[in-house]
C-alpha cells in the first residue's frame, strides 16, 4: 500500500532530501495560512505533481481513506461547537451549523491533507534505499539509516513469524474463534515465542552484520548513486524562501 512506485518522472529524479524539504516546508506553510483556500490550492497542486509522477489515483485514494473520517468528524464538531461561531450556515431542526466553525474545520482538514499528500508523493516516488543513501550523504549516521531500512521490513517479518506461531497453537487446540477473553489469552501466549524468536534472530542478525563490516569505521560507498543536482538545490532554497516570506507576511499582517 505504501510501496515505492518505480518511474522516471521529474518527481522520481529529485533528490529524496529535496522531497523531504518540500514536505516539511509545505507543512510549515499550511499551518501559517489563516483560511482553507490556501491549503486547498496546495492540495490541488500536489495532485498535479502526483499526476506528473504517474500515480494521481493512488495518492487521491489513499489520502481520501486516511483523511476522510477526519473531514467528517472535524467539520461536524467544529461546525457545531467552534467557540467563535457567529454566522449560521445551515439549520436542520434544532441543530445549527455555523460558518466560522465549518471554515475552521475545513482549514484543519486541508492542513492534514497537504501533509498526507506530500508524504505520500515522497514515499511513492522514492526508492527506500535511495532515501537512505541521500540522508547518509547529508550526514545521517549509517546505523540510524539501517534502523530506518530495517524497520520497513520488520512488520512483514513479524507478521510471518506470528502467523507460524498462531498456526502451531491452533494445531494444539487453541480456539481463536471463541470469546474475546480466549482471544486475549491467545495473544498473550503468542507474544512469548514471538519475542523469544525475535531476540534469537537479533543475535544472529547482529553477528551477521558485524561479519559484513557494519561497525567498520571509515569511508563507505553505495551501490546506487543519488545525485544532488542544481535543480534540487534551487527547489530547496526556494522552499526555504517561501516559508520565510509566508512567516513574515503572517507576522506583519
Amino acid at each position, binding site marked *: 500500500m505504501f510501496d515505492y512506485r518505480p518511474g522516471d518522472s521529474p518527481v522520481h529524479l529529485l533528490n529524496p532530501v529535496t522531497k523531504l524539504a518540500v514536505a516539511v516546508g509545505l507543512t510549515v506553510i499550511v499551518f501559517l495560512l489563516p483560511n482553507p483556500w490556501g491549503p486547498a490550492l496546495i492540495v490541488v497542486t500536489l495532485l498535479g505533481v502526483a499526476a506528473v509522477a504517474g500515480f494521481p489515483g493512488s495518492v487521491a485514494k489513499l489520502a481520501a481513506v486516511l483523511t476522510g473520517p477526519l473531514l467528517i468528524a472535524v467539520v461536524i464538531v467544529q461546525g457545531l461547537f467552534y467557540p467563535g461561531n457567529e454566522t449560521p450556515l445551515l439549520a436542520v431542526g434544532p441543530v445549527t451549523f455555523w460558518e466560522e466553525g465549518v471554515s475552521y474545520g475545513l482549514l484543519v482538514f486541508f492542513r492534514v491533507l497537504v501533509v498526507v499528500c506530500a508524504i505520500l508523493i515522497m514515499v511513492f516516488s522514492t*526508492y*527506500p*534505499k535511495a532515501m*537512505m543513501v541521500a540522508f547518509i550523504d547529508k550526514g545521517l549516521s549509517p546505523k540510524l539509516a*539501517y534502523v530506518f*531500512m*530495517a524497520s520497513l*521490513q*520488520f512488520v*512483514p*517479518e513479524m507478521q510471518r*513469524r506470528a502467523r*507460524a*506461531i498462531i*498456526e*502451531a*497453537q*491452533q*494445531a*494444539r*487446540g*487453541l*480456539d*481463536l*474463534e*471463541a470469546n474475546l477473553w480466549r482471544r486475549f489469552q491467545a495473544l498473550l*501466549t*503468542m507474544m*512469548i*515465542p514471538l519475542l*523469544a*524468536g525475535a531476540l*534469537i*534472530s537479533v543475535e*544472529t*542478525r547482529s*553477528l*551477521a*552484520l*558485524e*561479519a*559484513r*563490516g*557494519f*561497525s*567498520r569505521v*571509515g*569511508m*563507505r*560507498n*553505495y*551501490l546506487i*548513486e543519488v545525485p544532488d543536482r542544481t535543480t534540487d538545490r534551487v527547489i530547496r532554497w526556494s522552499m526555504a524562501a517561501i516559508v520565510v516570506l509566508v512567516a513574515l507576511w503572517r507576522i506583519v499582517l
Partner: protein
Amino acid sequence: MSLIEIEDLTFSYASQQHEPALRNLSCTIEQGSFVGITGLAEAGKSTCCRLIAGYIPHFFHGEFSGRVNVAGTDTRETTIGELAERVGFVFENPFDQLTGASLTVLEEAAFALENMGLAREEIRLRAEKSLSQVGMEDLMDRHPQQLSGGQSQRLALASILAVKPEVFILDEPTSQLDPLGVEEVFDVITDMHSRGNTLIVVSQDLDHLAIHADRLVVIDRGEIKWDGEPREVLLEAAEARYPILIPDVLEISRKLRAAGRIPSNSPVPLTVEQAATVLSSIDERGSAAQPIDSGRTSRHSKVESSKELVFEDVHYDYPTGVSAIRGVSLSLDEGCVCIVGQNGAGKTTFAKHLNGLLRPTRGRVLVRGKDTREYRVAELAREVGLAFQNPDDQLFRSTVEEEVRFGPDNVGASPE
C-alpha cells in the same frame, strides 16, 4: 605456518562458567583445505567456529585460555569487523542472517562491499560475480524475503564470497533446508573448494560432508575425538558405535566387508557410484530384483469416503492467486503415509487442510466424517495433531510440563 592455528584452547561461556564448551583443544588448518566438523549437539562445534571468526571473545564473553591465530593474527588482538575481511561466516538460519535492510538480492550481496567503501563499479561487479557463482544471477532484482531457504542460504554465501575472505566457515548451513536446498548449497560449497578456498563446514549431514571434505573432525564434549580422512574417521566412529549418522552406503559396505562379501584391500565405498562399482565385481549373483508392486502407485487413488481422512476434489488458491492444490482426491486410513515433494509443491498447504488451518476453495476435506469447513480448528485439533518445522515457533510455556499440558488443556481434557 598454517592458515589457522588453535593452541591449547579452553573456553567457558559466561553463562556456563563451570562447564567448558572447549577443553584444551589444539588443531591447525591449512590453506585450501576443506575441513568438516561434526559431533553431537552441544559438543562445541559452533564454539570452535566462533573462535576462528573472533566472535569469541569479542561478542560472546567468558573464560578464555590458549590462543587462536588466523593468518598470523591473534584473534584477541583484532576486531570482528577486521577479521570479517579474512573469515566469512554463514549461519544456520537462512533468513535471520540476511541484513533485513535490502530490497533486492543484489543490494544484499553488496552490503559488505558498501561498508568496505569500495568504488561503486567494483561493488556492482563483485556482487554480480558472487551471485553468479552461487547460481543466482537471474534473481538479482528479487526481494530477499521472497527467497526459499536454499536460495537465502546461497545468497548468504554470495554475500560472503563478494568480500573474498581467505576462510569460509559454514555453521550447519543445511540443517533447515529441504533436500533440494541441501543439494544447492553443497554444489556451491564444492565449487568454492575447487576454486582453492579454505572451507570449514559444521554439519550433521555426513552423506555430503564425507564425500566432499578432505578432513573430518569429530568433536565430543569440547575435545577432538577423531580427526583425519573422512572415510577412516567414519569407520572408527562406526566401529565404536558412536552416535553420529554414519552414511548408509559406508555402513552397508562396512558390514559387507566384515562378512567377506567385498574385498578388504580396497577402500570402503562412500558414494552410491563407488558402491555400485565394488558390488558389480561380486561374482555370486543374488536373486534378481523384482519390481515392487504395492498396488498403490496409481496417480489417482480410489477415494473411499468411509476412511479417516478424505479429500474430495480439493483445490486451494491463496489470496495472492497462487494455486497450491489442484483437484486432489484421496483417502487415508491407519498406517504411515509420507507426503514428499519439492519446495512449493503444496505439501504444507495439503497438511494445513488436515486440521482446518486452511479450508478448500473448492471441494471438501472430511476428518472422521467431519467436513472441515463446518468445524473450528480447535475442534478438529481433537482429531488431528499437526507438528510444524521450526520448534522455536511451537514452544510457548516456561516448563516442559506446562508445555505438554497446553494441548490437552485447550481441548478440555480431564486432569488425569
